[in-house]
């Protein structure tokens, strides 16, 4: 009787162990705790004080990425009357912001900021995203399942989804012109098209120096902050502004921690549950059924 029970118990715990080893794969997420970005990553510094909202960058992006023609042409500046976001047909858009106390509006170009430690990448369960040493966050649409967790995870609301497609809907976002330009050391199409040099392409660490220099030279013009230097762990695209950043549509509550650091609290729980639970609950079982067993043994002795 006793041996039978023990054998049953061993079989049971073996199975629990086997199940645990299958799932064990899900816990090696802590390697990137203080990853500050690739040393030679490229970036772009966007100077809001120089942008006039001409939408040349939007047109250049549309052409370079082979996106569908827009409903309103790129010369039509009336689209600026409403705040827009990136979509499956537009990987970058320019928005206009009226600044209280300033006689002219500011324009902000948005696109993927190419984070040093991208939330989209860390949230993707098919590992579709890659942060390249050149600084671009690219993705492989052939493995995209369409769970859209990256859209939930992105703090900048950038990834869009081709909802209209029936057979092959995938994530759509700016890839820093990686395939056609960045890979060969060339700046992305939008930067090249800018007539006002509002966009500066260069090594990220040099751009931070450039930005600080501009702030130092014109302290009365610029806000003393480079948006993207430290936000959510730092981004490859960074911004200078003459108005407080929250007045030009930036989220200033994002903090400097990469999004992954908020998820780690749970990820550390995973291996503990996997290793402690089997023994703990098997122990509970032995304790809870101890008296029944004793009773049975007493009976069999009689």
């Amino acid at each position: 009787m006793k041996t039978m029970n023990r054998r049953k118990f061993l079989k049971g715990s073996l199975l629990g162990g086997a199940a645990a080893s299958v799932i064990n794969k899900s816990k090696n997420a802590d390697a990137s705790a203080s990853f500050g970005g690739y040393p030679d990553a490229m970036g772009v510094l966007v100077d809001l004080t120089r942008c006039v909202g001409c939408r040349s960058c939007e047109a250049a992006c549309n052409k370079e990425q082979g996106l569908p023609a827009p409903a309103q042409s790129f010369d039509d500046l009336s689209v600026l009357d409403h705040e827009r976001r990136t979509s499956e047909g537009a990987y970058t858009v320019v928005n206009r912001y009226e600044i209280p106390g300033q006689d002219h509006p500011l324009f902000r170009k948005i696109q993927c900021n190419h984070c040093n430690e991208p939330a989209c990448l860390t949230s993707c369960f098919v590992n579709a995203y890659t942060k390249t040493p050149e600084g671009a966050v690219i993705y492989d649409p052939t493995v995209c399942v369409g769970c859209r967790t990256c859209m939930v995870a992105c703090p900048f609301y950038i990834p869009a989804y081709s909802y209209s497609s029936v057979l092959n809907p995938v994530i759509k976002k700016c890839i820093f012109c990686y395939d056609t330009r960045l890979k060969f050391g060339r700046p992305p199409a939008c930067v090249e098209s800018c007539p006002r040099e509002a966009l500066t392409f260069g090594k990220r660490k040099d751009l931070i120096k450039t930005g600080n220099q501009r702030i130092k030279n014109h302290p009365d013009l610029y806000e003393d902050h480079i948006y993207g230097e430290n936000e959510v762990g730092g981004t490859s695209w960074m911004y200078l502004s003459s108005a407080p950043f929250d007045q030009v549509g930036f989220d200033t509550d994002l903090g400097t921690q990469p999004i992954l650091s908020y998820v780690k609290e749970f990820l550390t729980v995973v291996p503990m549950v996997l290793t402690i639970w089997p023994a703990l609950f098997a122990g509970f079982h032995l304790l809870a059924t101890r008296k029944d067993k004793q009773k049975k043994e007493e009976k069999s002795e009689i």
Partner: protein
Amino acid sequence: MNTLIANGKVPLAKHYNEDRSVEWSVKDKLLLGLSLSEYIAQAFRNPLNWLFAVIFTVGGYVTITRFLFGLGYVTHSSYDYPWGLFLGFGLFVMVPLSASGFMLGTTVEVFGRDDFKPIERLALLNGLLGYLFAVVFLQVDLGQPWRLVYPMFVSLGPAAVLFLVAWHVATYLSVQVAELVPAFAEWMGMPKLKTFIKSMILGLTIAGIILSTLHQGALGALFTYAPGKVHPLWYSAPFQWFHFFCSSIFAGLSMLIVVSTICKKTMAWRCDKNFLTNLDRLTIGLAKGATLALITYLVIKIIAVAHDGDWGYLASGWGQWYMLEMVAGVILPMILFTISIRNNLPGLARFAALIAVLGIALNRLNTALITFNWKLYQEIPHWREVVICITIYSLFIVTYRFILYRLPILYSWKKDEDAAS
């Protein structure tokens, strides 16, 4: 069915007829021992079936259009709200309400509380079907559902929380199927299969606890990816997984009380005496467990507000919404449960369970949809999205009923006595 029983029909619950002369075939078992015409006649008499017929005609059509014209046709194709009702309701509400399987598995198999046996199988079935239909909802929502196995075999992203959810739900589904095999084996008359599963039931149950702890928690942890998007009162990086796990405990137990009540009211003919006479006692027992989970949940929710320093938000409109959720969805059922336990009022416990179920649904919808993007606009789901949700949930109910009518879930199979005689 009640009319038929009044006319002397006995719902099928064993392998042989009264005088052991005829062995029931699978067809007889499927038709509950009725003839085909009798079976169809009783199905037509049930007004609920007519309602389902309407839902499946309209909803079935809308569901097909989702696959013909894409997600853009049935949803608002929102980039800001990538997850709508399919996940907000189908995944985030269905899964905690299905925690009953591992709760009762633990109670009976691990803690040795054999007095809960009459309701164990119902709990397991509630778990299995809840998960199964959560996956159905997921398949409707995924852009490319045929790539569902990609995270398993094609391209693995093991550091992602959703990877863990995918693996755990898949593994746990198979564990739950295995846990219900004994019921199926009895029905089909395959005793060896039952013995085989029984031999590893403890391992299965413990695997179920591990998987449930982690994926219930992981569903909460999915929202830790969106610190700026979920309202701070519904968001807590260190506690989110525990909030979701802990609330799934009373959600699962309360759902079990609700489901068992529906079974008792609508299909008493299928329940055996063991189930019916024990149900009041078991309801109070489940209420005790739910109350313990509720108080734990309440405390840890308050600790999270204190830890994250969110007191200031309580005074805002969102804060009042939060307090309403806590008072109506947590504190009220907790008090009602307590009164019902002290005064032995199973009816009150059932009412409290219903409130707790609605409370947990509100909590999940708040986290996934209502307070999500609280700094932006509010998204109202497309009507086609609502119709598809109702359709799939109806399919869930019909499947649930189909199995309850047949497999020995609410009653015990009379094979053993027969074999002895």
